């Protein structure tokens, strides 16, 4: 049992770290309500006018539409490819399994700039002009990883005998998949999809290299900041992006955390 002072010191330390991490983000939220378009502290007053102007900004709307499109497209592709890859790796008993698994995970670890340049080079090599589709492909490379990791982790935690038990009771391959495997991994699949969408929604670097003339929301933010224009609107958009990326992450954590483990009874 640590002493009283140690406990107080520890709590203070944790509080400082949290302040360090979240003060800048909180500032953005506060500035989104700033009546002045100059960022200064303290803010002169609260207003919602930037929300209206942002919502009515056609550039922001176009970017939002593109971000949603790309996010949903990349998530859908990642769901199919990531789940299939996880199934394949889980079943494989080949000695090169760990290597193949590493290759699947690598895109997440690679610096975005490497992935971005490589994709850009590949697209121009193949004579493919940059479009929404190329952004989707670019995002899919790292979205696959989170789906793959989540599904594989769940498959590994699932008792192997459950599949055998279902076969033993007369279920054919399709019935085993429908009645046993998919329900058992469903929360992991959903969690993977949520994380994939969140990753895609705030991605900048790979997008820069795979987008043509179009702007996703993060690219719009990037551009606006560089030009030093419409900063109050940037604050609104950033606040929105933060919410859209945090909420799925929280849901995903709940799905794979407490709720997820309760579904798999400990094998004793």
């Amino acid at each position, binding site marked *: 049992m640590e002493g009283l002072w140690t406990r107080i010191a520890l709590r203070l330390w944790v509080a400082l770290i949290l302040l360090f991490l979240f003060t800048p983000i909180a500032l953005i939220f506060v500035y989104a309500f700033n009546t002045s378009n100059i960022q200064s502290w303290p803010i002169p007053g609260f207003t919602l006018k930037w929300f209206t102007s942002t919502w009515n900004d056609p550039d922001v709307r176009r970017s939002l539409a593109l971000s949603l499109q790309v996010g949903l497209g990349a998530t859908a592709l990642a769901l199919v490819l990531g789940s299939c890859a996880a199934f394949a790796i889980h079943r494989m008993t080949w000695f090169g399994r760990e290597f193949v698994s590493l290759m699947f995970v690598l895109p997440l670890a690679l610096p975005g700039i490497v992935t971005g340049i490589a994709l850009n080079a590949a697209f121009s090599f193949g004579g493919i002009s940059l479009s929404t589709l190329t952004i989707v492909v670019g995002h899919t490379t790292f979205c696959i990883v989170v789906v793959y990791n989540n599904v594989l982790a769940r498959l590994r935690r699932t*008792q192997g*005998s*459950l599949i*055998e*038990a*279902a*076969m*033993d*009771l*007369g*279920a*054919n391959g399709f*019935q085993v998949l429908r*009645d*046993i495997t998919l*329900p*058992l991994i469903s929360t992991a699949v959903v969690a993977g999809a949520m994380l994939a969408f969140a990753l895609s929604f705030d991605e900048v670097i790979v997008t820069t290299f795979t987008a043509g003339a179009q702007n996703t929301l993060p690219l719009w933010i990037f551009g606006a900041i560089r030009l030093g224009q419409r900063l109050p609107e940037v604050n609104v958009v950033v606040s929105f992006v933060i919410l859209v990326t945090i909420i799925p992450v929280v849901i995903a954590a709940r799905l794979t955390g407490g709720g997820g483990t*309760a*579904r*798999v*009874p400990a*094998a*004793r």
Partner: protein
Amino acid sequence: MTEAEPKKAALKLQGVRKNYGQVVAVAGIDLVVNEGEFFTLLGPSGSGKTTLLRLIAGFERPDAGRIELGGRDITSVPPHLRDTNTVFQDYALFPHMSVAENIGYGLKVKGVPRSARQKRVERALAMVRLTALGNRRPNQLSGGQRQRVALARAVVNEPEVLLLDEPLGALDLKLRQEMQIELKQIQQEVGITFVYVTHDQEEALTMSDRMAVMANGQIEQVGSPVEVYERPATEFVAGFIGISNVLLRDGVRFVVRPEKIRMLAEGEVPEPGMTVEPGQVEDVVYVGMTTRYIVRLDRGEQLVAVRQNMDAVGDAHKFQGRPVRLAWTANHTFVLDDGR
């Protein structure tokens, strides 16, 4: 061999063999299990008993040999088309289904209509005394209750043969003993052929109609519990089931069970025909119902003799270190035909 009336074979294995790489798991087994029989595969871990069960269930394909179920060759039939059901060691209950859904799953995939299914599930729940728990999830049940659900889920399909893979292994002693009796009762009630895998000799002796003792992927002996215990065919069987006292006298190797050995009191005259050998008590072990005397014979071997604790408390220890005479009759010994 056990009874005169001829019985129909529920399960027939011919030359069944299974290797994992260099390791021989099942080394050519011939076996017939009769209809309605409680048949046990008994052996230490690594003896191949679980592999044999998995071969019967269809989870593994034999490298050689033939498996017949109810007269039909099922050697290459996949598990979901075999008329066998398995009670798994870890129960393998579906965590996302209720108890009733678990039990009804086999009937559901076989297309049994809903109302008929419900009735059979209810009957199965009643059989394992879990009527009130149909709506629970498996993770809301105790170990013993899960075990019953696993049993009900298998029995409800009325398979030709029910396979049980150490189903009581995860339960504590008291519960295990209760379940042994209950399992046997259920088996007699439903009349399904049981093939039961265990490493627990007592379990095998208590429950089986017949049993096969396995070692190194082979069957050492098949017989009723009495036959296997009283007339073990090999030294391995004698040693694996109960305590074996193996002696070599006049070139003949034989076994005397500890409870058949009498310790003669000082000056006591042995009954006619008894063999008497002197020795010294090396150790006295109190095991509750009985006391075990470990005796070093003057001729060198160590024998274990067992006596029921009917005497006054604590007087057993006075034998420690004392010279004794052990006596047994010839018809309580049995010669080992080890082929040696």
